[in-house]
């Protein structure tokens, strides 16, 4: 396992909607927090925020020591922009007038990529923060629970295509972001996928686009919601399945399990032969008593996963 200082400043969990980005972000952060490391999960969607609060209910009572190390931040780009205005304009009265004016509100909505730029700027800022007393990184694990594929790509592209902002504070920020995302030493990109055709197709497209358009390669791929049979990596399993299939041809529910198994196995092979990265399998868990129990079970399963 990579020690804290070997870890990259930022970990990005990305992928198709519904593959478990938020859940795995929380599980990873919870694991770090239980070890006493500061972990921060950054989200940008209101629904994710809701998911987080439901998932972590009961943490304070059961793990009071972990709660001091676990942070979740919902970044609203509009708020960051308003704060920038307040910093830039010395007069509080004038700053408020600008922020509440309709022309300001309209312009930030239509200015292309502005909100994305503001979001990335805040994220970048968090990745740079160091604790004053030790000068170590303030968050030893900083996870961006990224939006689903399309919007994620658009957001990252903003770091490259900021040429519309030729002047002002956002032009400067754009330059810093471009430098940050140009270096693989700054962040670990981890696509998450389920082993279903649509999710795998989207993952392949995403990784291709990230490589071609931004020169970013994934560090690791997580296959989430897999069957335990895949996780065992048992080479005899395919044979067992075909034996079982031959005797159970008439059993519809068993056919369901077996055909899913075949699909899963072949998609896994397809991924591995196309994207060269480390692979990690996380199995699908039946719902537990509470969401926190579920997170703990997943965190435990991810124990073998290196730092980022």
């Amino acid at each position, binding site marked *: 396992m990579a020690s804290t200082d070997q870890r990259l400043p930022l970990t990005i969990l990305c992928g*198709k*909607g*519904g593959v478990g980005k938020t859940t795995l972000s929380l599980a990873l952060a919870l694991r770090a927090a239980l070890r006493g490391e500061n972990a921060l999960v950054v989200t940008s969607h*209101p*629904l994710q925020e*809701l*998911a987080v609060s*439901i998932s972590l209910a009961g943490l304070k009572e059961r793990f009071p020591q972990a709660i001091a190390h676990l942070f979740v931040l919902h970044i609203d780009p509009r708020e960051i922009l308003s704060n920038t*205005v307040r910093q*830039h304009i010395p007069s509080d009265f*004038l700053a408020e007038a*600008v922020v509440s*004016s*309709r*022309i*300001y509100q309209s*312009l*930030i*909505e*239509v*200015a*292309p*990529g*502005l909100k*994305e730029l503001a979001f990335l700027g805040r994220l970048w800022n968090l990745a740079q923060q160091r604790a004053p007393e030790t000068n170590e990184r303030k968050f030893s694990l900083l996870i961006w629970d990224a*939006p*689903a594929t399309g*919007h994620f790509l*658009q957001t990252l592209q903003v770091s490259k*295509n900021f040429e*519309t*902002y*030729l*002047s*002002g504070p*956002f*032009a400067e920020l754009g330059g810093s972001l471009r430098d940050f995302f140009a270096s693989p030493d700054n962040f670990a990109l981890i696509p998450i996928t389920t082993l*279903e*055709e*649509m999710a795998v*197709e*989207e993952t392949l497209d995403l990784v291709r686009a990230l490589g071609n358009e931004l020169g970013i390669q994934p560090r690791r791929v997580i296959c989430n919601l897999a069957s335990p*049979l895949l996780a065992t990596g*048992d080479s005899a*399993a395919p*044979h*067992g*399945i075909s*034996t*079982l299939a*031959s*005797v159970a041809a008439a*059993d519809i*529910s068993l*056919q369901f399990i077996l*055909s899913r198994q075949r699909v899963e196995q072949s998609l896994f092979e397809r991924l591995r032969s196309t994207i060269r990265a480390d692979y990690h399998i996380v*199995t*699908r868990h*039946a*719902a537990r008593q509470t969401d926190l129990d579920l997170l703990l079970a997943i965190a435990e399963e991810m124990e073998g996963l290196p730092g980022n």
Partner: protein
Amino acid sequence: MRIHIFVGTGGVGKTSVTAASALSAALQGERALVLTIDPARRLRTALGLDAINDASSADAARLQQQVSLDSISSGGTRGELHAVMLDVASSLNRAVRLHASPKQAEEILAHPIYQVLLRSLAGMQELMAVERLDQAIAEGFESVYVDTAPSRHALEFVDKPEFFAQLVSFPIVRLVGKTYRWWEKSGIGRFSRGTFELYTRVEDMLGSHLTRQVLDFFSIFRGIAEGYAHRARHTAELLRDPAITSFTVVTNPLKAVRDADFFLKELERRRFHVSSLVMNRVWPRLENMSRINDSLTTATAAGMDDATREALRGTIAWYDAVSRSHQTVWNHVHSSYSQRIPHLVQVPELPEDIAGLPALQHIAQHMKA
């Protein structure tokens, strides 16, 4: 005319459920249209949208396609199913050409901000969906099924048009938009901008180049935007009329509890009528465990080794636990929302991903039942 809007987060099978509902209406004799954002490859094939795969070369006419129902209805329905893939670039180009004078259209299409808008696309899908909905109404469809984008914020589809309508009606945008070019040309702008203190501050913030470009763009785009805003306002009214529009929340067992709560609250807050909740991708229960165990015994007799048998036994037990937990979620959703949402439906997961119209019909049948 009825409008059905499907909302939900990513990965719940929203596009399939939307397409299946439209198919169901067509099979019952309606002239139905399904409006999708970006269907997965196989669903695209099922809807005959392959031909318009290459969005960059696609012209507006080819973005709509009638789906042949011959393979599943053997000519027994007089209904029609049409599918539209929403392509922001070509829809917007079409709107510009339709609503602007040829000279204006040329200016808009070549404007750098327009190009940036098309490239970034963020937030434009929702606007175009409303534009496209208007077009469908004009074309006389009996029912329209709208698959909303899961991107960014699930409800931007309903928020954006109203925002846009407000935007172009703000007096200062109109004023600055109208006078801006004249201002720039005459050179007076440089001096008189001081009177627009707020505007100047905004310019400092965003950079003057960008702000000018945006305003310059709006000064030519304004005519179209106003026409658009007018239609958007009208459409927003249709969306609030329960006799015309109903909303369906699509979710899956992993997300059902929080999705149901979130969407119901947000939609009701916006005064939209929620008629259905579909819990998609529910794993079917194992009907006969003892028979499955018999199968395992038979397989052992046929030469399966112990380790493999135990691995399979473990997998079956795991499957059973997951499918049970799906039913627990369903019971919870049912008891919490049956009073507030008229139709609660669960749709079982198919063993493989959606393939062709039969798979959609399969979903449709479960939704009717």
